[in-house]
């Protein structure tokens, strides 16, 4: 935690909304991205991420500098996601590979657009990945995102979600299988047999 960030946190605890907005500006993109891949809808992602920041602002007095500010925010984010999952509040929109280009444009108007061809390929890739993630349960999707988006270890995920390490590993494995099916990555032809290559 930088000294400037500590100062901002102290001011936010005063409470100072402007200081808190500066903190939100630092980590807002990561939280929004996580929310976007979790709920697959830009509007829901914005609502969800802003709800995270509002809850964090209301609870900023309880932040005791025992962990990093982003770790604290991420914990609030996970709790928000899980609560939202329980209440089934957000609208679930599957952005599958069957979406046309227009539909993709409507669904995600803010995507980065480097060029037309690259953009089309990228959008198809994004749609396929989101379609694969859409086939997972919200919990499995969250575990996969925490692993690959946030780079958390299985132990950290298990602690944050409240599950076992094995469950976290299974969720990631299931997400990988779904992604592999959706992205149409062929299995190796000689996959099937007990081969003699690795006899030890």
């Amino acid at each position, binding site marked *: 935690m930088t000294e400037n960030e500590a100062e901002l946190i102290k001011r936010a605890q005063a409470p100072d909304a402007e200081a808190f907005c500066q903190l939100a500006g630092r980590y807002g993109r990561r939280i929004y991205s996580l929310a*976007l891949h979790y709920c697959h809808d830009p509007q829901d992602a914005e609502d969800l991420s802003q709800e995270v920041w509002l809850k964090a602002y209301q609870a900023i*007095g309880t932040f005791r500098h025992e962990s990093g500010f982003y770790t604290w925010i991420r914990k609030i984010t996970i709790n928000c996601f899980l609560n939202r999952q329980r209440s089934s509040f957000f609208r679930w929109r599957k952005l599958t590979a069957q979406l046309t280009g227009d539909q993709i444009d409507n669904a995600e108007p*803010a995507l980065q*657009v480097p060029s037309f061809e690259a953009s089309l390929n990228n959008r198809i890739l994004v749609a396929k990945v*989101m379609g694969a993630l859409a086939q997972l349960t919200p919990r499995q999707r969250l575990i996969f995102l925490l692993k690959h988006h946030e780079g958390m270890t299985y132990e950290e995920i298990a602690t944050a979600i409240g599950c076992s390490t094995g469950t976290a590993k299974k969720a990631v494995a299931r997400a990988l299988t779904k992604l592999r099916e959706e992205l149409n990555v062929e299995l190796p032809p000689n996959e099937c047999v007990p081969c003699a*290559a690795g006899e030890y």
Partner: protein
Amino acid sequence: MHNCRATKTILIELAAGDANQLPGEFKNCAACREEFAALKNVLRAADTAIHLAQPAEGFWPGYHERLRERLQKSQPTSGWLPPKFSMIHWFRKALTTSIRVPVPAALALLVLLVFSIFFAMQTRRASSAGSILTPPSIITKTVEVPVFQEKVVTRVVYRSIQKPSREVTAREVARTRDYRQAESAVTTQGLEGFKPANQAKVTLINGSYRNEK
């Protein structure tokens, strides 16, 4: 013997982890190498998609403006408290803290709890039954009660006076005269100055009467 099917889950874990290269066991298997590479490609594509799905730069000013508006309307619920004084936080933490317990240990604890409750109830029931069976304790107290042993006995004494018959002899007459004189002397003199005693001494002999106590 190396089995590609059996090691598939290990490969997924390896690919999902931070490993970029396979361990020695898998390096010699072409199928495992291909599988690992495919999984890594999938993850790379997913990471690319996640990165690409980020909104454009033009999205963020509006987002932060909307967030600022919502934050201005909302205020922290309890204001700022120094951490050392936030008792509510400690209380909440104490209430919500959970520990992980292995299932066998949890079951053992549960069984122990049930048995302890059962034995406690049994002990309580036995003690209550025992308290009913035991005789009540006798407390001996000496209480002084005033006993009046004085008795007032009123006795009526009947005296029979025999009159002399006509066929009495002279001696008898003489005797009768003496007797009368004596009697008159007694009646006139004997009762004069007689005062009933204040105290009468009665001696009761136990067993002289049937119902005497």
